[in-house]
């Protein structure tokens, strides 16, 4: 690797700023073709990119696995399945422990940490984030909230925000439709807004940026280990600090995005509806149920 060889030469300190600039150029910016080529080259990656075993590093590893299972563009009918698989994979990473516990059978096992190639991230495919908002009219807000809470827990979800008139539910993405039904049956739907947002590009971009930053960090660490002048060491250390900060930021963004993918969000606003004191319908109902059975419908029904 020319960079390292140059750096090893004690007699060539003048080349350091240039080489450092070269290294840092690879650190900043988003997922470009240059970065991709950079990652693919055997000089930078050496071999396939192996996801670090640190706790926060599981997201890119899984993201890469999701990409690896993505279908070819010609396999359009399988896309729905792909989305389900993808969200299931991601769910394991993003699911809070308390939300995973009620439905252990449905939460997939944590994918095994295995080497992922950087090129995996080039696979395309939609990754959807489902959100919905409702305005519901109910007679008793508290009772409706309790019912919705129970339904959410039954679906393996949890309540993320709750106040007197509003509740925010998080449910596993594959239970989104069930959750919609649960909300709709809780009260009279006054307004409804359901969205599916494709964050596939954003997710892949974040993954590539993270891997690029980690590759830069590795090289900076190597440079720091070989630095002979204090000035050089300080400059490399300063840059290393910046790269580490960026890595943490990207990991946080990936975790947050993974959580949004794995768990759909439903915001339900309740509007109390006054219950009529008296039955103001045109039909006064006497307390004799047989009166409701009068008429031709029952009389002429001859089939058993």
């Amino acid at each position, binding site marked *: 690797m020319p960079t390292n060889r140059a750096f090893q030469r004690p007699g060539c300190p003048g080349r350091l700023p240039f080489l450092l600039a070269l290294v840092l150029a690879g650190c900043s910016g988003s997922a470009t073709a240059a970065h991709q080529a950079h990652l693919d080259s055997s000089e930078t990656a050496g071999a396939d990119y192996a996801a670090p075993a640190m706790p926060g590093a599981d997201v890119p590893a899984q993201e890469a696995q999701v990409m690896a299972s993505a279908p070819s563009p010609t396999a359009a009918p399988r896309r729905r399945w792909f989305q389900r698989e993808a969200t299931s994979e991601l769910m394991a990473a993003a699911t809070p422990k308390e939300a995973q516990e009620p439905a252990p059978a449905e939460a997939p096992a944590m994918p095994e940490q295995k080497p992922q190639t950087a090129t995996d991230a080039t696979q395309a495919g939609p990754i959807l984030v489902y959100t919905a908002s409702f305005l519901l009219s109910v007679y008793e807000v508290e009772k409706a909230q309790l019912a919705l809470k129970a339904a959410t827990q039954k679906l393996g979800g949890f309540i993320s925000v709750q106040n007197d008139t509003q509740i925010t539910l998080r449910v596993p993405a594959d239970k989104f439709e069930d959750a919609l039904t649960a909300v709709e049956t809780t009260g009279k739907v006054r307004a409804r807004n359901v969205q599916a947002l494709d964050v596939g590009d954003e997710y892949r971009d974040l993954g590539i940026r993270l891997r690029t930053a980690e590759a830069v960090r590795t090289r900076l660490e190597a440079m720091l280990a070989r630095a002979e002048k204090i000035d050089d060491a300080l400059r490399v250390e300063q840059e290393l600090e910046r790269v580490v900060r960026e890595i943490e930021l990207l990991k946080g963004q990936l975790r947050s995005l993974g959580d949004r993918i794995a768990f759909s969000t439903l915001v339900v606003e309740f509007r109390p509806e006054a219950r009529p004191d008296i039955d103001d319908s*045109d*039909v*006064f109902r*006497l307390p*004799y149920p*047989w*009166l*409701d*059975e*009068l*008429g*031709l419908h*029952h*009389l*002429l029904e*001859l089939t058993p």
Partner: protein
Amino acid sequence: MNIRIAAVCLFLFSACAHASFDTPREFAKLDEEGRYAERATSAHGVVIAVREVDAPEDTSVAFWSEAITQRLKAGQGYALLESRDVKARSGEAGRLLGFGHDQNGHTYDYWVAVFPQKKKVVLLEAGGRRDHFAKAKNELERAIASLALN
């Protein structure tokens, strides 16, 4: 001893007995296990049935006539076409309410004869498509007159 057994049998028989009518000619009696005590149908779907329902003690014909009329008119869209007094074979007074009802492009007739008894009401109902009902009217009148209340 034999008299006692006969009395018990008579008591049991009277306890199990229910209102009944003579099955009109050209009608077939149906096996009933549910809502009605007896039911019979013509080949054209004109049906006559009788049943007993629980009711408060000492309610009047007028009360039930009004309640039934209101329920069918306001609740189910029936039109009251006639209201007249009738008598069961056993002599009890009742009232027959005749309704009309349009459905699926056809007009139907529906009769309810109400006979309030002690703690119960006997209801005799008859109905069917108007063209067939009109032909069976005489037989239905005869069935109402044959009604035996127990």
